[in-house]
């Protein structure tokens, strides 16, 4: 009798907490979110966390947030990452890219996707510990910058 009661208790406990009783994910449009990771709804639409709510929108809308002159190539799945592929319009630069304009000048794609040229002496002067410029050079990854040393 005692064994039977124990069996019933075990069964009752299992019944009230099934293994697959996981809480539903907050991943639908309108659900609250803080995630930086979008997901593709289809080839042209993306689900993104906008103002802390999941929103489905077109990749054109999403790319436009990166700069005023961006084009969408659609939503792309690359392994675990899903996002809109965005490229600059012809004649525009890609936001935050750099290139050496001369030995002493750095080009930078600033706000509005407009190419701006900076003098390395001026840029280095803003660095507290390394105010002296060695000029503009690209690092081993090909990224250009003004290189600065201490006085």
């Amino acid at each position, binding site marked *: 009798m005692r064994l039977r009661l124990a069996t019933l208790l075990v069964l009752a406990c299992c019944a009230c907490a099934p293994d697959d009783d996981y809480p539903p994910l907050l991943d639908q449009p309108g659900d609250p979110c*803080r995630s930086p990771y979008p997901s593709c709804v289809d080839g042209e639409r993306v689900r993104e966390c906008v103002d802390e709510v999941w929103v489905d929108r077109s990749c054109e809308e999403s790319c436009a947030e990166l700069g005023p002159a961006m084009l969408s190539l659609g939503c792309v799945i690359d392994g675990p990452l899903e996002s809109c592929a965005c490229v600059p319009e012809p004649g525009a630069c890609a936001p935050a890219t750099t290139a050496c304009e001369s030995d002493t000048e750095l080009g*930078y794609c600033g706000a509005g996707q407009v190419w701006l040229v900076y003098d390395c002496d001026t840029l280095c002067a803003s660095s507290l510990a390394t105010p002296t410029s060695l000029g503009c050079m690209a690092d081993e990854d090909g990224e250009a910058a003004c290189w600065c040393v201490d006085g």
Partner: protein
Amino acid sequence: MTVQTKPPPITCAAVVACVLGCNDLPELRYETEHLRIGTASDGLLCQGNLDHYERLITTLEQQLGTSVRTPIHVYLWDESRFFPDSGWCDDSLIGCYRQGAVYADFISIEHELVHAVVDTFATPTPFWSEGAAMALGSSRTFFGETSPVDNLDLHASPQLDYRPAGHFSRWLLETHGLELYRELLRARGSSREAFERTYDMTMEEAQELYFAEAPHAYGALNTCDHPDLPQTGDLQWSETIEIDCAAPNVWGTSQVIGALRVLTVTERGFYELTTTEQEGAIIPCFDEDLEHPVLVGDPNYGDVPPASGGFLQVFTGDRGKSVLELVPGRYELSIAHEGHETRTAALTVRAATGPIPQTPESAG
């Protein structure tokens, strides 16, 4: 550090552990005011570990307005990978607290110690119990991928999602204070009944406010409680540290010992980090709340961003990076070597003399 040589007292927890896996409990080797710590091997802990765990208990006592009157027994496992095989907790767990005793590895011990302190004055439901352990531990809490309401009646891992439990508890602490939170932990009934009786609003109403107000992450309540690295000049910090397991603030595992220091940076810039120790590393302290997730590579945060659970950057060895761009904030520096041999090591941080790359973006 006191090594206890007499046999450990047999506790109910020992019986529970035996039922679970019939493994022998390790010998109690270390004793602090509030803790009796058993480890499988001698030399697992150094004075810094013991002081840190003791400080955590004292801080929790103050935060929760309680007192640990009976020493907490802690059975500590060195190898996280094999902890589930120890039989001390359920297979799926990497630590547990049962009837006055903590069974844990180095990752889970602080979480389980919170359970032990809460147990001195309350027996909350799993949602509130795990929520408290997450909210009062030494890590950030995060906005989860499930809602608090959907987790209220879940009983344990893996079904219960600890993230929203912890983040919701922390939000309650931030918005309604400690007194009500203590009442919540002591309240009887289901998770919902306990909450609604304490806070005088429905869980759904509270959850709506939580979704609107809670940041992506709260800073940890207990973080970087290590000595400062002394400032020795303008944008320069340095110290010669004796890495001796018996010395205060020296940490150990069975394989390494080392020291931890806190670096406070007030000016963004490139800094050179050097040490004579075998390995040095830096991570951000979990001080600030993060409104939104921070991704590694975000130029606003430099080379050691406050990303998720923390981003560790090694600054020694071939794969290390010794010149780092740091933004204002507190950082935890660790230096360590293999084995428990006592050594003296230098640790220095100073503004890098270059050449360093500068772009309009990094110049701000």
